């Protein structure tokens, strides 16, 4: 593939938090120390090369940044202190902004003011909606002594809101993933037989659920995989509970603590809190390579999730302890944080990795399977 060197790529990357990369002298240490290196899908040094040379097309087609989990080994051992792990992190931002056809992602990443404005704006709209709609603030309690939450926020309306948000977010994510597919597979002209799409499909959910690849990174007393997995499962379960199982989740009865609804809720909350506290302490203490540099988006990500979790816990406690007004106002606050978090962070910012990463793995395995197949048929033809 003939490519023009793009001298503006550097400026572009600097804006997205990439640090100076002239340090790298191409020794290949990062590629060799990285436990996840795989031909064609992850090679940190080649990413460095493409960035240094301004090979924009190659960089945009490169899925390496998604295959990296930022264990930080490469940065720790890089003889030039070039920080390849941080480059990968910054490139995830770059790729997110490239896949996002609306341009909002780029805007939010490069303009702090706009990102805050969008978050606050959405939160204000949520609060205004509640104000205009004026839900009844019923002070009476249920027979069990709980708050009558469903008369304050009727399930059908909240469900409607939930689903419309889910549809919008999904539509954005899917279109971005198609764009990613175009950049990674179609544009570079990778030929993939249709059957391979089907045979490799299982990797998508499998990876999403287990994050198995990440485990290889947990060497030398690091527990990223565990912390990350708890946070991810907590988040996913909670998301499913509030969108799909809302009628079972937002209830007025106070179930026994061993009821599935409460157990799942507690697990998710614990998972989220555990993972979040691990990350927050890490980012404050900067105790490991991966926490050394914190972009604004990294902080927003954890802070908003933390606030959502905490307001969720408060909501639960107020409700079962029969504190109607506290419950109602916390409910509004909870939703006012949750909505911007999901609508902004998921499609346009750091959270999008929950979709891009499994797809990157899927695309990588497509490429690999296709080339293996091609190799085998070639071999068969040669033998015949």
């Amino acid at each position, binding site marked *: 593939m003939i490519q023009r060197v793009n001298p503006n790529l550097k400026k572009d990357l600097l804006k997205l938090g990439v640090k100076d990369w002239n340090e790298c002298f191409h020794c290949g240490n990062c590629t060799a120390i990285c436990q996840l290196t795989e031909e064609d899908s992850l090679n940190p040094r080649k990413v460095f090369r493409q960035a240094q040379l301004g090979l924009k097309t190659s960089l945009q087609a490169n899925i390496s940044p998604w295959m990296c989990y930022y264990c930080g080994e490469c940065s720790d051992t890089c003889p030039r*202190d070039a920080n390849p792990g941080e480059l990968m992190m910054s490139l995830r931002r770059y790729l997110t902004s490239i896949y996002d056809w609306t341009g909002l992602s780029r805007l939010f990443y490069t303009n702090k003011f706009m990102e805050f404005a969008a978050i606050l704006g959405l939160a204000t709209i949520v609060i205004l909606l509640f104000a205009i709609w004026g839900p009844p603030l019923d002070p009476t309690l249920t027979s069990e002594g709980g708050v009558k939450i469903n008369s304050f926020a009727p399930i059908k309306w909240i469900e409607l809101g939930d689903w419309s948000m889910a549809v919008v977010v999904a539509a954005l994510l899917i279109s971005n993933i198609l764009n990613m597919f175009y950049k990674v597979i179609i544009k570079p002209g990778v030929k993939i037989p249709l059957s391979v799409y089907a045979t490799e499909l299982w990797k998508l959910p499998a990876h999403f659920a287990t994050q198995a690849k990440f485990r290889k990174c947990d060497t030398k007393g690091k527990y990223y995989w565990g912390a990350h997995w708890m946070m991810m499962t907590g988040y996913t379960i909670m998301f499913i509970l509030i969108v799909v199982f809302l009628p079972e989740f937002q209830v007025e009865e106070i179930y026994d603590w061993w009821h599935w609804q409460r157990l799942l809720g507690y697990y998710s909350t614990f998972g989220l809190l555990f993972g979040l506290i691990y990350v927050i302490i890490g980012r404050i203490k900067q105790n490991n390579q991966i926490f050394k540099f914190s972009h604004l988006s990294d902080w927003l990500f954890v802070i908003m999730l933390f606030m959502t979790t905490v307001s969720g816990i408060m909501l639960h406690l107020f409700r079962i302890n029969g504190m109607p007004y506290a419950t109602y106002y916390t409910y509004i606050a909870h939703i006012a944080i949750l909505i911007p978090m999901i609508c902004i962070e998921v499609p346009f910012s750091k959270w999008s990795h929950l979709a891009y990463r499994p797809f990157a793995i899927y695309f990588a395995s497509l490429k690999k399977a296709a080339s293996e197949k091609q190799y085998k048929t070639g071999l068969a033809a040669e033998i015949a």
Partner: protein
Amino acid sequence: MTSIVFTENGNGNGSLSSLNYDNLLTYAKGIAGIGPVWDKTELPIYDSGAMTHILKESKIKKIIIAGDEPGMLKPFLSKAMSLVGEDPGKVILVNFKEHGFFTNESFELAKTLLLFAIKDIPFEKVLVPEEHNVNKDTLVIGAGIAGIQASLEIADGQQKVFLVEKSGTIGGHMAMFDKTFPTLDCAACILTPKMVEIGQHDNIELLTYSELKSVTGSPGNYKVIIHKKARRVNLATCIACGICSEKCPGKASSDFDAGTTQRKSIYIPFPQAVPNKYMIDENSCIYVENGKCGVCVKVCPVPDCINLDEKDEDVEINVGNIIVATGFKTFDAKRIDQFGYGKYPNVITSLELERLVNAAGPTGGFIKFRTQNKKKNWIFSPESDEPKSIAIVHCVGSRDENYNKYCSKVCCMYSLKLAHLIKEKLPEAEVSEYYIDMRAFGKGYEEFYERIKNENIHIIRGRTAQVDQNGSGLIIRTEDIEKGLLIEQKVDMVVLSVGIEPAEGASSLAKMLNLHQDINGWFSGKNYISDPTSTISGGISIAGVCESPKDIPDTVAQASAAASSVLQSIMKVKTT
């Protein structure tokens, strides 16, 4: 009117000096009655017309050029002065670096120097002051190839030399090698005759197993106290029969063999050691520990040769000049966790391999696996098996921000040499060499590299990142940069080409002798480019690797340079 021009600004000459020139310039501007003070960049350098105009306008009668390299402006400004009819001799140089003013600690001194220049007070710091009587005797510290070369040259010039060596023998690192690059000459054939000459030279007094304790006095007349450690064997009477060693029950790891084998507590570092006498290592001698042995005394055929109760002593000498040639130590490979040195027995260092390929080494010149002896010590013995595949890893501890940033300069070449020697000893073995850049910079070096490339050795570009043990073998991970592929290679043995660092104790020596050390601990000469062996302390020179990493030819050249400046200082002045 007197004017001052600064040739530097900001923090001096970066790597060489951190004196704050901006502050000096501000200071100079405030001196009463001074004419214009410029930073070099403010002047129309190389435009004589414009310059003469400035000189005339400000009625300048004298110019002081101040900085790290003031000499470069002198021709231009002298010419401009003569063009306006002034005395070109009134262009005065103030070279801060030459006076040892490298840092802001010398800021006040630098100010004084400026004032001297303005008031025409002579300040030339004389290397060896003429009015002093210079003691003709010279002290050389460190007896590697640098110290040996310098001592022989001075001694051959009919001057007395005290050669002080920390270990029990002279020879330094070169004595450990079998062959030297790029000619593959036998190292001992070059070195041993020189060592013998040192031992026999009438003008050389050799003080082995000794170190400097204190230095007082001034250039031309230094009083030096040398701490002589107790050897416990009489240098005059020991006949080096070795009977004591045979019977001695004490054991320790052999420094001379880079720890590849064990030696007795009473020992000779190696058969050709100079002085060719036995010595006792107090750290492992059982008698020294609990007073319950003395076998050596009983078996020694020479009466009163071994004195187990001998004590350390201090010797005082007076010298006029000192040459420091303390060389280096190799980088401690244990510091790099991912290479597993010290954890996996067959990850070895280049220095250990030098001893294995040496016919006088622990395995008689055969490359063998490291194995445990009966006492559970890891050693190389001639009985163990031979590896079938060996990988050499470059830049261990060098060119690495986490360890030493600098290039150790000799390891690319010695790695190529070692690859060749492995092939010579084990023609069937598979030899791979992993490097970042191949630095083959000297005469015949590139040709040597070309030659080794054709010896069926895999030379792969890429820095090895990790070594892991897998069963009895080792797995190493490297990216082949040229192919862009990750290589996991299974080998029997990994050789780490460790970098080099200033010798143990270099910093305390620097304090004692008032030497300047660069950021990495190497001693700094007066001027790295034009006067690398003289130092800011008059009468003290440096030579060999202690100044910066270099190979043997460069080391020898520097040693000769240092010797010649010592001889020059002795010849030039009235001597006692």
